[in-house]
């Protein structure tokens, strides 16, 4: 484990050195990439709302994205708990074989 951990550390330090090096070697010819969502092709109202938001107010879109993702995650977690408790399987006495 100790050796493995040392390898992970070594790997990460190599990456953190190599990636910027590769980038610098490529030189600066940077122009920002702007993406416009094609709202003409979106048919659903909800989809249109979010695509419009993406084009006009990125901050609000970001807040929505985080809140919705977190909220949906919690919703799914609790829904799954309810479903699993109905299967009749004993999930409390799980013996973890190894992590």
């Amino acid at each position: 484990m100790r050796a493995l951990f040392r390898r992970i550390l070594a790997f990460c330090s190599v990456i953190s050195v190599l990636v910027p090096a590769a980038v610098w070697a490529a030189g600066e010819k940077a122009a920002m990439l702007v993406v416009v969502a094609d709202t003409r092709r979106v048919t659903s109202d909800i989809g249109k709302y979010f695509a419009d938001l993406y084009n006009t107010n990125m901050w609000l879109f970001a807040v929505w994205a985080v809140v919705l993702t977190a909220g949906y995650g919690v919703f799914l977690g609790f829904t799954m708990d309810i479903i699993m408790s109905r299967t009749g399987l004993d999930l409390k006495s799980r013996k973890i074989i190894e992590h």
Partner: protein
Amino acid sequence: MEHSFWYLHMPIAGVEIFWPGLVLIGFSVGTIGGFFGMGGAWMVTPGLNILGFPMAFAIGTDIAHIAGKSMVSTMRHSKFGNVDYKLGFVMLFGTMFGIEIGAQMIMWLERLGKVGPIVRWVYVGFLALISFMVFYDYYKAVQSKKAGRIDGEKGAEGITWYKTLHKINLPPMIHFKTAGFTCSAWLPIGVSFITGILAGFLGIGGGLLRMPALVYLIGCPTHIAVGTDLFEVMISGLYGAFTYTLKGRIELVAVFVMLTGAAIGAQIGTVATKYAKGYGIRIGFGCAVVACMASIILKQYGFDVAAAVVILGAISAICVYIISIMFKGAAAELRDKKERERAAAAFQN
């Protein structure tokens, strides 16, 4: 407009995505993550990229789905008091700063037009490391079994690097009550900074590195390390989702499709751990990692269809295996339970 049944139009990235592949990736991440107890996010970024998402979108979407997935597990752990919030909040600075740097690096690479190849090759290295770890672990387990040792190796006791690191006297010194040690705030901040960069760059939770670092470098008791790591994964997911959205590199539709798949898969995976025996399945896991690595290389050289077939095939194979473990075990358990009830009823009569 090719609106064939099998392809879903992603409004922001503007690409047509084979949606069963998306569902399969979400489901597999849930199943494999639930079964092996490690995120599984390593297959999402390459998987999404192979399905046709531009690389930056793949990373942003991956990191957002991590945020959704980790919410519930973090809440559970905090209920048991396994999270050292003080440590978590101190590490938050490093994590968020690191993620921002990682994300900025991605955006920069994107401007240079090099994001695809560079992230793919970093992933190849990263997955090579994971598969090496898995196979090495298996090899050691087999060796110690041959030698007659039953409990395997307990490596943690030998490593006391944190004792030296705790001696660093750089203010502010902070005492962490739940974890039970005092050290310079810069130690956890430094560790979380490095894992944050990795998380922001690859779109992963970073637990693979943060967990051992918490135990060996910071000196956290293992159960606190698990909870605190989950807390950090949640924060890094949420912040990552926010910053990648702000940069316009996220596809919400895909996040939701994957989250749904992952939630179902995670239940199957965790239930299956109850019935799984032996180390054999680890080989399957290692093979899935190698297959994922191979498909990234295929994608890099332009064999898109072959890459998709390899990665989707590999993860579905391992999923089917885990599902079969679960169904066999669950059926046996329910049968036993019924028989016990019947016996009890007969006894009462």
